[in-house]
């Protein structure tokens, strides 16, 4: 469902992704780990279509379509969801109105009838339970004054509402307390299905205890330099990245 081949991207003449390839099949969960600054968030942004990044080479297919050819909002409506590492606040815009508009756009794109107010509210109450999001938060302005953990939970709530086929979670686990981590992980697990895939960007193996990945990749200097199963995450936890860096840098 997601094929990335030889992806290169730069920002302000700084090359960040340097020939990245990755294949994600329906229903799979891929974890991406890697040292700070290696390009993980950049990958997420490029996939989501952030304009600041210039793609200089490579291709990305998403459900058989050329992803790089689509505007960011089309990517979203086609089923790509990015849970941001740092969700922004949009003061004065209620979470509800925001999601109502987002869901409406997505349904329009898919040729579905808009939800009635009642159906929408039903969906909200159903999905907010998934991440145990306080009803109050759903009614407040988008992320405004939310705690770090609440913002992350809100991202997963939004993901549940939009029912993407691919969820990219950029460090959704960071800043979560132990209970919240479990709640968020349960939420994600509940959304797992044979059609829906996930890319989890994380620094901590702990998340992967809850959301067990099919594959674990190490991103370093803009490339995937090592791939394995969940055991790789354990190994990284134990040994850090130095041994991988050495391996890669020796070949460079």
């Amino acid at each position: 469902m997601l094929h990335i081949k030889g992806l290169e991207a730069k920002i302000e003449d700084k090359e960040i992704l340097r020939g990245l390839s990755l294949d994600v099949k329906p229903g799979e969960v891929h974890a991406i780990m890697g040292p700070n600054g290696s390009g993980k968030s950049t990958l997420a942004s490029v996939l989501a279509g952030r304009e600041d990044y210039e793609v200089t080479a490579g291709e990305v297919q998403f459900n058989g379509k050329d992803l790089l050819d689509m505007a960011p909002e089309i990517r979203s409506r086609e089923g790509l969801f990015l849970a941001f590492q740092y969700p922004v606040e949009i003061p004065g815009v209620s979470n509800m109105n925001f999601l109502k508009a987002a869901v409406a756009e997505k349904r329009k794109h898919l040729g579905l009838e808009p939800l009635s107010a009642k159906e929408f509210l039903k969906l909200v109450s159903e999905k907010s339970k998934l991440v145990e999001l306080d009803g109050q938060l759903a009614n407040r302005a988008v992320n405004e004054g939310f705690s770090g953990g609440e913002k992350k939970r809100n991202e997963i709530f939004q993901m549940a509402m939009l029912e993407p086929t691919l969820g990219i979670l950029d460090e959704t686990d960071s800043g979560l307390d132990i209970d919240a981590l479990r709640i968020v992980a349960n939420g994600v697990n509940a959304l797992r299905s044979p059609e829906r895939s996930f890319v989890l960007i994380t620094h901590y193996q702990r998340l992967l205890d809850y959301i067990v990945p099919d594959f674990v990749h190490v991103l370093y200097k803009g490339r995937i330099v090592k791939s394995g199963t969940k055991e790789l995450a354990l190994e990284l936890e134990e040994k850090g990245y130095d041994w991988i860096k050495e391996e890669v840098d020796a070949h460079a």
Partner: protein
Amino acid sequence: MSDEILDHITNKEYEFGFVTPIESDKIAAGLNEDVIRLISSKKNEPEWLLNWRLEAYAIWEKMNEPTWAHVQYKKPDFQGISYYAAPKQKPQLNSLDEIDPELRRTMEKLGISMEEQKRLSGVAVDFVMDSVSVATSFKEKLGELGIIFCSISEAIQEHPDLVRKYIGAVVPRTDNFYAALNSAVFTDGSFCYIPKGVRCPMELSTYFRINEGGTGQFERTLVIADEGSYVSYLEGCTAPQRDENQLHAAVVELVALGDAEIKYSTVQNWYPGDKDGKGGVFNFVTKRGLCDGNRSKISWTQVETGSAITWKYPSCILKGDYSVGEFYSVAVTNHMQQADTGTKMIHLGKNTTSTIISKGISAGKSQNSYRGLVQINKSAEHSRNFSQCDSLLMTDRCGAHTFPYIEVKNKSSKVEHEATTSKIGEDQIFYCLQRGLDQEQAISMIVNGYAKEVLNKLPMEFAVEAQKLLAISLEGSVG
């Protein structure tokens, strides 16, 4: 953001840009005493008012146009303007059916079908087409409560004592150049009187529309809330597209007696000119309210998106003890628009309070200034003001300016002023895009969120209209 999007909106036609071909009775361009006599006689006015106008004209002749505002424009040619135009119509209207069908169509284009207005929102509409009011509704119902809501011309005929007592009481003819001009030549406007202890049961609404090429508009509005009364008054405007500049110099006077409250809301969407700054309305308005009695309250709420140049400071004179003045404003400028707007809160009575919330939004190459005076006089002991002036920039080429003037002449009062300037967040826009909203929806959401504090102050029907207006005025304006 991409130039493509920018082009898209800059080429967008002004949504309400249409001219209604209604025959009109119009006098030749130019201004002198004879013109004023002609206006006064056409309106069948009493002697005192003619003299009042002539005095205003004499005052105006000695004045110069103000230049202190942060705006630049070619001065209007005051001798090139026709000072009177009245749509031809049947003299008396007993029902809406008698209105000129052209006018009805205009109203429909504006989305204010009167039947709908009547049926759905219980709003009484006094529709001002050029200079003469052509339709008034709900009059009977208001009449039962003793509320007077009519054109100022009618009020001059029917309620001369009230008009004579209050006209110029809040905005004297000497106040400023445009107020003097308006006093000399005003041809119509609205009048409203709420008797003692009456709570006006519906929003009173006037839709203004400039419709006659080259006609200056000099509206005069007078709202009087007698002791313990309440009224919410709505003013909304759109104007047809045209090339030459149109001068609009209205005067609005509000008087709130003891324990009375006036809520005055405006949505202003006059033709702003094209993207190169050609054409557009000059909006030089004097709006002022007098909180005359103790515990009286006046709130101004405005959403300003139109006009090439706006020069407007709805103000409150807080004369009564414990009186309250409020100013809530959203001013949007795009392309080459210039706005210099704000308020004056003049505290005279004891324990008076005022609140100022101003949200400026600048896009394109526009210039948007907030100018506000908070003056707490010696007599105004224990008074308070809170001001919050925020500016949101949509591009790097526009300007936002804040000119707060604060004068506190006693020690027991307190003034707080906060100001922020921010650029619309690329991160916020991207966040919205990622959730499937398009660029224009994203901007509309973010801007409406930013302006929410002010929009929330508008009556419901107006708030919806205002939100749409903000979105339309800013489509694709990020860059």
